[in-house]
């Protein structure tokens, strides 16, 4: 491998974070510029990798491998396939737009950006990991800064509670997953943590069935699977805007991705065995999350629960274990990531101006910030699976795969899509087109140029993929094929 692009992407944020920490705290402007530069580098490099992906060969592209702790069979091994590549790009997009949106954070921006970048490195590290230890290592790196970011910069009312809840959930989940991972390590007898080697370890059916739930559900906690979804809306709401974007946009994908990468790909027979349960839980996710979103009066909680609902679709796609469903799930991870980042950005912009998130108290924002309204509507159309937007490109294959696997679940899950339309329309109607309360009249200003860039970028991506699915779908399919080979080409 000539150019270690994945390593550079992974470490750019953390290096930038450390440099930022060395700057004096009062040089806020320099800190912000540095943060933006680092985020831009990460975005451009991941975009470059994304667009040159097709030129490389093999299941895993841009592979790098160095010995790390050889005695234990641990190596620094990275590479991306068709499913993780879009997620790397997603992380680049969210970190970039997150920095843009957080430009005006005034409370200790130095520490804020530093922690955000540590988080980003953790996330990149997981998406590119081809070594189980490596994956866990970065997974924990990603979870920890979350606690500080929420507890320090979060919404004053619930931040301690939410930060604690989130951290405990995720640590417990990861510990359970770790137990499963260690079981695989010892059982394989290969003395290696290498994922590609473990895939070929040939675990017995009984072993797979026993350990699959540990690994899958341990990670799926971070993916928000019912009934372990509860940390996520609280966490989303308490977090500051950029962190919510990261949290819902990328971090939940981290859980889903790890559940897929370690759970399904290493223990495919276990996945076959447990898939009915996953389908049941994920179907609950979809309908339950959407219906709770419908009755929330807090704008941000609506979006928080909508993530629970949409991640259910990802899990449904996984559980089909067929080509359509898995491809759809891969696309949905990206599409939902971008969409929810956009949603939280919009919520943040509204909240910054209105200082309330109670939907009945808001209104008329379309007039003062039309672009934000358009952005939200685009996100809403994505979330309800409107053709021409990325949501449709993702949800249609999921339903197609699900119908082949379990039509009844498909019939129930589509109800979630109708409810999605209901809550999106409710917000559009009240927050953007409702009557503006007197208190805001003339006091609410427009958004900054940076905000606009972020909105346009996020909406543009969702529309581009919706209109031209060939930008992403074929790539995801190459990843799906790898999984299908392991699962046995169902």
């Amino acid at each position, binding site marked *: 491998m000539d150019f270690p692009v994945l390593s550079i992407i992974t470490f750019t944020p953390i290096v930038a974070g450390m440099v930022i920490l060395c700057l004096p705290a009062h040089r806020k402007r320099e800190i912000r510029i540095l943060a933006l530069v680092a985020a831009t580098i990460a975005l451009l490099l991941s975009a470059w990798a994304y667009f040159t992906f097709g030129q490389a060969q093999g299941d895993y592209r841009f592979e790098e491998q160095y010995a790390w702790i050889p005695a234990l069979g641990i190596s620094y091994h990275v590479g991306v396939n068709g499913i993780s590549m879009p997620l790397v790009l997603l992380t680049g997009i969210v970190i970039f737009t997150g920095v843009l949106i957080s430009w005006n954070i005034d409370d200790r921006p130095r520490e804020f950006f530093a922690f955000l970048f540590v988080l980003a490195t953790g996330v990149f590290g997981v998406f590119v990991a081809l070594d189980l230890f490596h994956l866990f290592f970065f997974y924990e790196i990603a979870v920890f800064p979350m606690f500080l970011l929420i507890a320090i910069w979060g919404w004053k009312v619930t931040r301690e509670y939410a930060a604690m809840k989130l951290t405990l959930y995720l640590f417990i989940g990861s510990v359970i997953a770790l137990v499963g991972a260690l079981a695989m390590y010892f059982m394989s007898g290969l003395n290696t943590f290498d994922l590609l080697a473990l895939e070929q370890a040939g675990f017995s059916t009984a072993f797979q069935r026993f350990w699959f739930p540990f690994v899958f559900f341990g990670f799926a906690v971070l993916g928000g699977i019912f009934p372990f979804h509860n940390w996520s809306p609280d966490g989303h709401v308490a977090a500051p805007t950029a962190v919510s974007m990261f949290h819902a946009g990328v971090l939940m994908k981290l859980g889903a991705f790890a559940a897929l990468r370690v759970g399904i790909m290493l223990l495919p027979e276990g996945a076959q065995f447990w898939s009915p349960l996953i389908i049941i839980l994920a179907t609950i996710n979809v309908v339950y999350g959407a219906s709770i979103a419908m009755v929330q009066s807090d704008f941000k909680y609506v979006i928080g629960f909508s993530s629970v609902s949409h991640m259910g679709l990802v899990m449904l796609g996984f559980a089909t274990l067929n080509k359509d469903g898995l491809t759809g799930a891969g696309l949905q991870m990206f599409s939902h990531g971008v969409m929810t980042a956009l949603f939280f950005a919009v919520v943040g912009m509204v909240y910054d101006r209105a200082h309330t998130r109670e939907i009945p108290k808001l209104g008329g924002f379309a007039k003062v910030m039309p672009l934000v309204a358009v952005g939200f509507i685009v996100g809403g159309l994505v979330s309800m699976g409107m053709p021409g937007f990325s949501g449709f490109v993702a949800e249609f294959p999921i339903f197609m795969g699900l119908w082949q696997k379990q039509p009844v679940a498909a019939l129930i899950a589509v109800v979630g899509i109708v409810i999605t339309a209901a809550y999106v*329309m409710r917000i559009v109607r009240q927050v953007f087109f409702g009557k503006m309360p007197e208190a805001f009249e003339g006091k609410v200003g427009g958004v900054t140029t940076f905000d606009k860039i972020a909105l346009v970028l996020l909406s543009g991506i969702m529309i581009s993929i919706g209109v031209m699915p*060939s930008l992403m779908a074929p790539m995801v399919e190459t990843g799906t094929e790898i999984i299908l080979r392991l699962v046995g080409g169902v």
Partner: protein
Amino acid sequence: MIGPELLAFLVPLPPLLAFFVIVLLTNRKNRLSHRLAVGAMVISWAMAMTIFGLAVSRGDLGHHPIAASVAWLPMGEGVLNLGILIDPLNAITLFFVAWTCLAIFLYSVGYHNFGKPRDPQDRAGLPPKAGGIEPMYARFFAFISLFAFGMLTLSVSDNLLLLFIGWEIMGLCSYLLIGFWYGKDSAKRAMVKAFITTRVGDVFMLLGIAYLYAATGTVNYREILFDEHVLQTLAQMPSVIGGLSAGGLIGLLLFIGTVGKSAQWPLHVWLPDAMEGPTPVSAMIHAATMVSAGVYLMARFFPLVTIGWHEGGALTPTMTLVAVIGAFTALFAATIAVAQNDIKRVLAYSTISQLGYMVAAVGIGAYVAAVFHLVTHAFFKALLFLSSGSVIHGMEHGIHETHDHVDPGDMTNMGGLRRKMPITFWTFLIGGLALSGFPLLTAGFWSKDEILADAFAHGRMVIFVVLALAALLTAFYTMRQITLTFLGKPRTQAAEHAHESVWTMTLPLVVLSVFAVAAGWAGIPDHFPVIGGLIPNWVHGFVGGTLLEHPEAVAFSAVPLLVSISVALGGLLLGWLVYRRVTADAKDPLARLLGPVHTLFKNKYYFDELYDLIFIRPAYWLAETVSYRWIDRGLIDGILHAIGRFALRVGAFLRNVIDLPVINGSADMFSEGVKGAGRGFRVVQTGRVQQYLIVGLLFTGVILSYLLLANP
């Protein structure tokens, strides 16, 4: 290469371009915006007519359609292609869509008071009060352009996916346009209601598409519907629901989409409320195009809906359901229409009713009749809506002049408008007669008669009687409408001062009236007494070619003909007799006659209230109380917090019972012991050097003696 294929690809694009240009560039320039929109529509219209001409002149279009496609979404083993198909059904759909859209575009210019100055009192999101230009004039044209794009896309598509895209674009535009005057609360409610109700149908339709794709590996119409082998497989493949074949279930799922889009019972509730939008919107979406899309879908998937059925044979379960829902809707909506006073609402319910006719026709296998009625209905219903818009416009004019603030859409405030608005009167009359099925002359007669004849000929007596009753009511409420609106004397000052509308509004009316009459002549059955065969039955020959096997024409029978003539004339006569003497402030004569039944009709059988009671409230209760409060906050968080508290208790226990007494205690004991020892030894630390020296000497002595004694 400019072939008909390329042309078909291009047809939908001009309005899309117009949409983008207006939204992004010209949305402050009213004149330029409407020129762009209307110009784009003219281009699309011209292309559509060229294609139609080519299609008609091509022999055996059904087997040799104009078709082409490009790859879009790679999926599973194959690739989803997006392409165009001009077969007879698409050609004829394209024909009426292009005409009605063009008429509606032109009409909108006048309807939104182009050329008048902007009234400073008017606010965006509310209808202009005093005849000033619409504040969001350019935006309106952007939206209807996008809408036209959706419908044209649907009309030329060769597969279900592209159809669905057009379908959803229209759903979105319908939402935006119903809520065009979003300042009105009723409009906001209506827009959401319309969107969500149709969405219910849409998601099931989406599942139908997914199922179809999963079963056949394609969503292309011709690969499924024109391939006997595929159809046979679908007919024999068992589905998840016992007793239904896969094909039947797919047909049913698609039909749910139609129920939503074409506002069939039980998803009909959104359409009447959708009248909150501007009138051109009502005409376009809720008469000519979008609601037609639902019936189009049924016509398109006719081979699938009727899978396992042979012409003349017993109906399949899916067909029976379709026929029953259609016929029931036709009668049910007609009964509501007789008791409405709002001119547009009557038309809305009549639309539901007429769509029910078409759906019933598909259900009984009367393919050509369904499509024929679809086409004629699009023309005469667009005409009626636009005429009613002209009436309302005239009334608003009168209100503005006289400051007699009455509801401009309420027919009881009208009367005598035939002298004030002669063109509108004549065109409305033509449309109304076509709707009632006025014998021989109007298009509505021929298409409606064909449905009745088919039902009768194949012995579907229940359907026949229900549809005939609905036809009677249709003629009745249409005449009621004409009488209340145009005949007699003006009942209010506003009606007295109403004016005829501008030419941009009346010209489209005249054009559409021509079609409302003449479109029927293309489908006169060959065996019709006297005039049959004078004009060849072009519709049957052309439309029938869409199917793999050309359907047989129904043999002539005098009974349905007499029935359809007598219900039409009888209904019209009754309507005139009952309503000709209505004066201002008089109670509706029908209300006196029917009493509480009339109240039931007037309140639409209380369906809105019923749905609120059995769906909406329980849904909210489930979501809010059960899911959120009980499960999420109660159970899950409860368990979590209990674990948290338990962990604290365990911590406290460990601290108080083990940590403090045992561990701390023993550590403390140890340290206390050390301290005690220290205190004890403190006495030796006196600070006197002499003492230390003595002690040192003593120790040295002891050690020396020990060493000497131990190692002799």
